[in-house]
């Protein structure tokens, strides 16, 4: 029982619900650059950008490369009275490997290094086949959903601010120099911001579905008349 606009109120086909306020919208394909907002709460429902997949893939690779440097290069160098200590994040992790604060260090490392890398990997896993026009991988939906769920727990940018605070605190105690790893983290903030600008979950979900990965034959094929989405 489809209406002329291509949606079905019995099965939900061709409809989209705002994740923030549950308002129903008729789904339609946007062209790149258009933006669909929820009619009630104004949440951005879709914001496709042209070439977004390729950009996101490139940025995911960038994150991985920067993170490699961030982990193994010296992070901060400290010296006082001729006794110096240059430390990389990797070194920090090893130094704490047997302390009672191991859980705290592990949690911190996971939040600032593990999750950004994992998210980049999941994004690559999801997007590379899609960008090449091949069918999505079998677990693409799970991977992308996990990546979105982990977004708030990936805290590289907060870590950079934390470092600045730590620098001020330690300034009276010793001389501190910023190492290359700090600047890698700093660059990650901007990579992250750009990546967010290109990210449009709705487009990616549609692409996963359209590519035949986990389809149920309900994807929109033709554009219904514009009704709810404003560009």
């Amino acid at each position: 029982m489809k209406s002329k606009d291509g949606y079905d109120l019995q099965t939900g086909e061709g409809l989209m619900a705002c994740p923030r306020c549950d308002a129903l919208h008729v789904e339609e394909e946007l062209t790149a650059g258009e933006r669909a907002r929820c009619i009630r709460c104004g949440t951005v429902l879709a914001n496709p950008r042209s070439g977004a997949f390729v950009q996101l893939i490139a940025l995911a690779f960038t994150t991985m490369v920067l993170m490699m440097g961030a982990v193994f290069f010296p992070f901060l160098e400290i010296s006082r009275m001729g006794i110096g200590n240059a430390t990389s994040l990797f070194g920090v992790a090893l130094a704490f490997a047997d302390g009672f604060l191991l859980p705290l260090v592990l949690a911190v490392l996971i939040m600032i290094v593990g999750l950004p890398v994992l998210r980049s990997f999941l994004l690559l896993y999801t997007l590379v086949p899609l960008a090449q026009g091949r069918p999505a991988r079998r677990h693409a939906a799970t991977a992308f959903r996990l990546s979105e769920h982990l977004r708030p727990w990936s805290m590289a940018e907060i870590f950079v601010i934390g470092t600045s605070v730590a620098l001020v605190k330690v300034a009276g105690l010793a001389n501190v120099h910023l190492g290359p790893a700090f600047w890698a983290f700093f660059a990650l903030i901007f990579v992250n911001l750009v990546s967010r600008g290109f990210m449009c979950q709705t487009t990616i979900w549609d692409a996963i579905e359209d590519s035949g990965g986990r389809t149920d034959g309900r994807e929109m094929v033709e554009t219904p008349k514009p009704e709810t989405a404003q560009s």
Partner: protein
Amino acid sequence: MSNAPDPHDDGPVLTAHRAGLIGCRSCGRVWPAEQAVCKRCGEHLVPPDRRRLQYVWAWLFAGIITYIPANIFPMMRTQTFAGLQGSSEATILEGVVELIHHGSYDIAAIVFVASIIVPIAKFVAITWLALVAGRPATVDQAHTRLKIYEIVEFIGRWSMIDVFVVAILSALVQLGFVASIHPGPAAVSFALSVAFTMLSAQSFDPRLIWRGLPLRSRGNSNDGRGTQAG
């Protein structure tokens, strides 16, 4: 109550729930109400229901409880000259005062806002949101509530700053005899408190803000739930 139209719901907007459907919070796909798992993204489908607020309350209480030791116990212990020049322990608040004495007011302000004002404001905001969620509201009130929810959701992670500061300092300042910094028990409980409040904010369903009243899904299988609105 469950059959009478609710005057406070902003009428013209049809929600998935009111249409007898269920929307996926992860990908937006709409399914028939009896569907349990979204076939597109694999997310569990949950109706906007005040009973889900239990998760919010549980995580919130956990967050408040762990916030107490985070303020009582020392965040870190500084030793200079292996304790000969004295070792000092500082709680969160003492750390802020120390920074002010050093003259770095801006950093003191960052730490004070991130580890004292933000967590407490978050507790208050989540409590209020969970109390008023699903209660009658005008459209304007709903917009205000959504705004507050978005602020809480956005700002929650930033409280982690203090934990990172302690982690960096203790890793960095291991100059052996000269000076050393060790994390205190408060660092762990503060990290837990931030994590719990983040989970609490994440389990809050913003769709409840827009639902004037609890479930009225065509009366079937949801009878009697109207009384839970309180």
